[in-house]
């Protein structure tokens, strides 16, 4: 066995370093959850109270991600002060290598927790050349970003995690907790405790209304796929595919501190088999590729001869066959140009479907070149009104936010989406400004509306309309029923000019299925009114 009691010059034994890394991973995963839960509550509970510093910090995990920050800067041509936070990660990588991947990245942490080692009978031989994929992905994303298309940012690990948590994990947890609550509530002595939990603790974890998101399985499947790839090789995603990993790998090549295997190495091969990213290779001698190394330090703990060191010095960059080269750059450029032109040749999102309602204050073109697809707006929307597009906005608009009033309405006293958007794709409006934004306009279907079609009072849409002067009014009409009876019915009608399209009328309409009042984009004059 290896003597791991021997201390390294830093004063910690290799095992202690390994533990430190595990605590760091756990800590940052919990930190991400804390930020996630905080963002869910902060701005909708205290509307209008969002101060500048909170708004800049609340999406910290996304702002530390250099890939999304650089790409959105390229595409939107707008510099955001907050995106400077990503410089921290860049500097850290230039100093210490890919510590982001090994110590901080929550996706990497989850991948480390599902090694599938015990399941693996034989590991398939994956060609080393596959490592180049992450560079190609990175370059395609960067080039497409220059061409104002950032659709592929949905491949960024942090956005993947946020999206999956919001659309799949949280709604599922919500259902599970509700199920457990219902089961336990019926047990007499547990009843008060359960309802106490339900009204005291639950609201701080789950949204006020049961979380409902479309296609949760799709997002979860995507995430599950990434984890399942671990079956082929540990951290398959980080090694071969992750575009953020590609960017950090490129920077890591230049890092000041690198893993170095000294000539004292006795070629036992322990480090080669333990390395989770396969960064240590041997041809004529054993060496570590700093671009692939996540600084997890597992090799140092395994090395019997203390031949693994981490010297701090400027080293010469050794090129690997899978690194960025001219051919990859050209292929990526070609792919990006061709892909973007093909998408532009039939932009579905430009053919605005009248139901493609965007969050308050959003300008559609700007959204597509700014939105990083993290789904944070959808996370914080207390009514779940903000859902992610799947086909509605075309391929270029995949997983961008849209409002579906039948699922949720835009709360009159909430402006959380604009406050938490890390790239201001949804502008950070004050509550007063947000209340004036035209999301769409309500249109009444008199063929189905209860007072119009069935001569019965209903008034729900008028009652719930939050506009101070009411955008929906009632008109007392004397009608003769089919039975010949005279009757006064209050029939709703919409004063279009006052309507902001918040959708609470559509949401609360008591008809089953589609509502008799719907919020639609009024074509034409929408653009001039928009923010």
């Amino acid at each position, binding site marked *: 066995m290896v003597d791991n009691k021997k201390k390294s010059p830093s004063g910690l034994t290799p095992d202690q370093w390994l533990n430190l890394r595990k605590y760091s991973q756990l800590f940052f995963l919990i930190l991400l959850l804390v930020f996630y839960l905080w963002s869910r509550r902060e701005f909708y509970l205290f509307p209008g109270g969002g101060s500048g510093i909170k708004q800049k910090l609340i999406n910290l995990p996304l702002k530390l991600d250099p890939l999304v920050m650089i790409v959105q800067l390229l595409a939107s041509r707008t510099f955001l002060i907050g995106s400077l936070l990503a410089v921290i990660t860049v500097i850290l990588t230039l100093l210490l290598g890919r510590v982001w991947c090994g110590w901080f990245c929550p996706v990497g942490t989850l991948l480390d927790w599902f090694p599938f080692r*015990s399941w693996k009978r034989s590991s398939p031989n994956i060609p080393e050349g596959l490592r180049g994929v992450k560079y190609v992905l990175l370059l395609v994303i960067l080039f497409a970003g220059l061409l104002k298309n950032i659709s592929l940012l949905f491949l960024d690990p942090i956005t993947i995690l946020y999206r999956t948590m919001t659309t799949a994990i949280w709604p599922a947890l919500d259902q599970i907790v509700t199920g457990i609550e219902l089961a336990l509530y019926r047990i007499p002595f547990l009843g008060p405790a359960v309802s106490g939990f339900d009204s005291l603790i639950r609201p701080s974890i789950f949204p006020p209304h049961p979380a409902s998101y479309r296609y949760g399985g799709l997002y979860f499947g995507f995430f599950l796929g990434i984890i399942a790839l671990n079956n082929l090789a540990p951290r398959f995603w980080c090694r071969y595919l992750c575009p953020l990993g590609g960017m950090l790998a490129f920077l890591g090549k230049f890092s000041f501190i690198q893993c170095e295997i000294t000539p004292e190495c006795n070629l036992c091969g322990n480090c080669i088999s333990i390395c989770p990213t396969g960064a240590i290779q041997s041809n004529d001698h054993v060496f570590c590729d700093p671009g692939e190394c996540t600084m997890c330090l597992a090799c140092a703990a395994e090395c019997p001869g203390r031949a693994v060191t981490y010297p701090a010095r400027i080293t010469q960059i050794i090129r690997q066959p899978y690194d960025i080269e001219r051919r990859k750059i050209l292929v990526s450029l070609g792919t990006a140009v061709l892909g973007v032109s093909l998408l532009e040749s039939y932009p579905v999102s430009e053919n605005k479907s009248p139901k493609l309602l965007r969050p308050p204050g959003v300008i559609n073109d700007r959204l597509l070149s700014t939105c990083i697809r993290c789904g944070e707006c959808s996370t914080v929307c207390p009514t779940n009104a903000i859902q992610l597009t799947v086909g509605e906005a075309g391929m270029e608009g995949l997983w961008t936010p849209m409002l579906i009033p039948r699922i949720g309405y835009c709360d009159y006293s909430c402006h959380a989406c604009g406050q938490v958007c890390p790239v201001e794709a949804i502008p950070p409006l004050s509550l007063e400004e947000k209340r004036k934004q035209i999301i769409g306009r309500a249109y009444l279907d008199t063929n189905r509306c209860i007072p119009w079609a069935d001569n019965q009072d209903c008034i729900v849409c008028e009652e719930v309309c939050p506009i101070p002067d009411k955008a929906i009014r009632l008109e007392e009409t004397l009608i003769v029923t089919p039975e010949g009876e005279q009757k006064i019915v209050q029939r709703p009608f919409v004063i279009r000019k006052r309507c902001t399209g918040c959708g609470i009328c559509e949401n609360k309409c008591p008809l089953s299925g589609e509502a008799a009042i719907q919020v639609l984009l009024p074509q034409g004059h929408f653009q001039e009114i928009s923010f």
Partner: protein
Amino acid sequence: MNDLSRRHFLHLIAASLGSLGGIYLTGCLNQEKLLTKSIDSEKISPTIFQPDPTSTEIPPTATDLATSTPENTPEPSPTIAYPNLVVARNGDPEEMVRKAVQALGGMERFVKSGDKVVVKPNICVAYHGYKYAATTNPWVVAAIVKLALEAGAKNVKVMDYPFGGSAEQAYNVSGIKAEVNKAGGKMVVMSNLRYVDTSIPKGKDLKSTKIYNGVLNADVLINVPIAKHHELARLTLAMKNMMGVISNRPMMHANLGQRLADLNSRVRSSLVIVDAVRMLMNHGPSGGNLADVKKADTIIASPDIVAADSYAATLFGLKPNDLTYIKKGKEMGLGENNLSKLKIEEINLG
């Protein structure tokens, strides 16, 4: 080794699933009990004060008898007459509430020591502060909380279920949470679990619906509506305020007047305090326009919900019977809508 641990793992899963299933089944059994219990309990909890519109007399308490001398009270059963309804005007909210409740015989008449009290203000939306008169005045609610606690209530819970925005948000925005917490009461987020199918034995149109059992189980329910405009009901007052304790509200609109009366025959308010400090004259129930708000500095208190609503209607220049639910409430025997038959005490603090 591998096989063993897998088997062990499967055993564990089977055991935990089995026990979970067991717990669940026990729960199901209990659900039946719970349902029958709530359906059976037609009678209202005996400690709730049930208003009798025809009588203004209530029997004296033990202390009254002890302090009274034989000379003063020759009759074996002396009675004290309280007004049916008290209107306080032109004071600050807390003062008006205190004087009005005092004139009704003090909070001790409604809240006994150790009672669990629920206060139901109108916090229907999370949109505006109290100045917009869409939600009950925070100081009115706080004054009631204080009075109930002073009368010896075990705890005072304040709750509503807004239709616009979430409860937590509305409690903050309305300013009610801050005042209630200061007064020693507790704001409760109404849990979806606690709406139970409840039969309405006296109901003419509404025979049963899901009602919040925290309200049903309370010893004392104090109903604190704000007087405001509503397009269908014309006004939303105390009887309409009870919409907040049921889960299926859209169905109420089909026959609002009768169904509100039915609901109020099951969920009885021990004391009604109508907040007309600010009245929303138009564009209710959500409001949002200060021009629609009229400062009236008035508090109406009565144990008779129909009487309280009838008087409040006159503040808007309406007759009690202009509101269908008042008419239906009278028909159902929930209270008196003829103001000339009531003993009304007016207090002017100005």
